[in-house]
């Protein structure tokens, strides 16, 4: 397989929150067209990794570096990262009361893609994407994530990913709380974006990986990647847990 261009390169990354070190020297490189899965127990630092890549101001990089498209990310604000093609599907998407999904999607698509979309073109694109994700058009007049079930929130995240057409997609536990049908739909969305992007899928479970084939699986413990492998590693982690890796350390 010919390797795509480098999308993300993380080297020896140390990150602290409120003075506590969470990531303790993490190294990872993702190329275009690759799907990476990171697995780890609660509190291992998976969301921290996703947030720090996206530029969350609460997380301080104390050592190491992140390069996106071969350029250091340090100075880019969150919205500039989004406009440069980075996307994060949130583990816990925020509620924005009073802002209708339809308005929000149109504005954010325009901001990120930096194009004036005609109302007609946008409607068509939106309709197709929502059709694929099996979302009813009544979604559009609801307020962003307000009163949404877990599954609805995740679907809205994937819808945004399809519209924003990212070059780097970070998916933080997008599979949690989904029933099998929803899981398949979400997987379909990821598979559509994956060939043109670098994907980093954070998950607890092997089951999403039945539908989205990862190229690499990484096990994360206490802020570090301690083991990397192919899809078989995900199966092993699910069956055996993480103890065997801890003994390793």
């Amino acid at each position, binding site marked *: 397989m010919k390797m795509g261009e480098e999308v993300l390169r993380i080297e020896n990354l140390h990150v602290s929150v409120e003075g506590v070190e969470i990531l303790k020297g993490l190294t990872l490189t993702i190329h275009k067209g690759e799907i990476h899965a990171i697995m780890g127990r609660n509190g291992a630092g998976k969301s921290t990794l996703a*947030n720090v890549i*996206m530029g*969350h*101001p*609460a997380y301080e990089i104390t050592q190491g570096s992140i390069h996106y498209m071969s350029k250091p990310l340090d100075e880019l*604000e*969150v*919205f500039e*990262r*989004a*406009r440069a093609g980075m*996307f*994060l599907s*949130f583990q*816990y*998407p*925020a*509620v*924005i*009361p*009073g*802002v209708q999904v339809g308005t*929000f999607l149109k*504005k*954010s698509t325009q*901001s*990120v893609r930096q194009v004036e979309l005609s109302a007609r073109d946008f409607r068509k694109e939106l309709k197709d994407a929502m059709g694929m994700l099996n979302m009813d058009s009544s979604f559009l007049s609801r*307020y962003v994530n307000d009163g949404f079930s877990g599954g609805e929130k995740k679907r809205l995240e994937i819808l*945004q990913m399809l519209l*924003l057409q990212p070059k780097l997609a970070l998916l933080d536990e997008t599979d949690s709380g989904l029933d099998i049908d929803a899981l398949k739909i979400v997987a379909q969305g990821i598979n559509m974006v994956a060939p043109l992007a670098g994907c980093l899928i954070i998950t607890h479970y092997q089951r999403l990986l039945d539908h989205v084939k990862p190229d690499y699986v990484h096990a994360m413990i206490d802020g570090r990647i301690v083991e990397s492998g192919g899809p078989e590693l995900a199966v092993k982690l699910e069956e055996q847990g993480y103890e065997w890796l801890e003994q390793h350390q």
Partner: protein
Amino acid sequence: MSEQARDAVGDYRYGFHDPEHATIRFDKGLSEQVVRDISALKNEPEWMTEVRVKAYHHFNERPMPKWGNCSELNNIKFDDVTYFLRSSKQTEKNWDDVPEDIKNTFNRLGIPEAEQKWLGGVTAQYESEAVYHSIREDLEAQGVIFLDMDSGLKQYPDIVKTYFGTVVPYSDNKFAALNTAVWSGGSFIYVPKGVHVEMPVQAYFRINAKNMGQFERTLIIADEGSSIHYVEGCTAPTYSTDSLHSAVVELIAMKGAKIRYSTVQNWSSNVYNLVTKRGVAYENSTIEWVDGNIGSKLTMKYPSVLLRGEGAHAEVISVAYAGEGQHQDAGAKVHHLAPNTTSNILSKSISKNGGRSSYRGMLQVTPKASGCRSKIVCDALLLDEHSRSDTYPTMEVGNSTADLEHEASVSKISGDQLFYLMSRGFSEKEAMGLIVNGFFEPFTRELPMEYAVELNKLLELEMEGSIG
């Protein structure tokens, strides 16, 4: 607007002013003679002159309110105010007959355009009097009366005499007294039995001169089973000295009638806006106040409803935005005076850059008003640490069958919301604009679409100045 003008007025889009062209301008200051002169100039019936003079004396004797923003109220220099200014000889029916630069001003404010597209009638008041007035012929044919108040008094003296001051007597408060003494302009509306006015009618109030006092007086009567939606807007130029706007609005909803009164107040930040708005609702009628306060230096305004007939309903939705140097002291008052009356009050405020917003509410249920229901929700959003919000709710409940709910919250924009929106490509300012618009959405969705769009733009503009 020119660059220079833009610099002078900052982000306030309506801060430009025209050269003054008064045909009659009173000297500054207030006296019994000024009051009599206004009345004489308008050729009013004797009874009105007398009411004015009585009100004037009451105004003089009545102390300033001891509540609200007293120190700011005491800064008002009543002697520096111009109490009457006529800028056009008469009220025109055709925009082409309105003096050129006044017409241009209203063009800039989008009034003639709105009129053509979606309004049933328009009054445009400039300083003390209406310079333009029109109503659609079909409404006139149905017997709907929509006039500026001065013409209303001339043409329908009996109706005016019957209702004037019955809902807001001059003795109600100091500023109601002031208004009654020197009132000029405003709207007079009568909707006959069973007539539904489908398109909103609008009044637009513009202050142009420096140190101007505008004292319009509005009276709306909806006869049995009728309905009307009245919309008012207001702006003024930005000056370094203060202007005073003190209106009185009286609404009367007869049995089964419905009145909706929507306001988007966007005065420049040198205007004191001290307004008394009250309605009386008879059996099974509805009065709705949809009240938005964005501008002004100090606003004190508490739209009220007296639920006098069984089954009457009051709805008050108000929003306030207080930026730098602004205090929005707003709220609602509802008096349940009859059985099975219901009310909903929703108040939302945003404070930013040291601005202050206060909710002042009054809910009364009298002993004979059994089976009443009321819900009050107050939400405040603070955009920074220097800003302030307070609530002063008062409840007087004299009947134990009342079903009352009261919720209040104060919140800040959360870091999670900002991070989420910014990760979707919105700059921090854009994200704040979205959140703020969303916060006011329960209000904006009640406005005619054109107003809603305008208001959202306005708030986005306000957010732009906010972050260093």
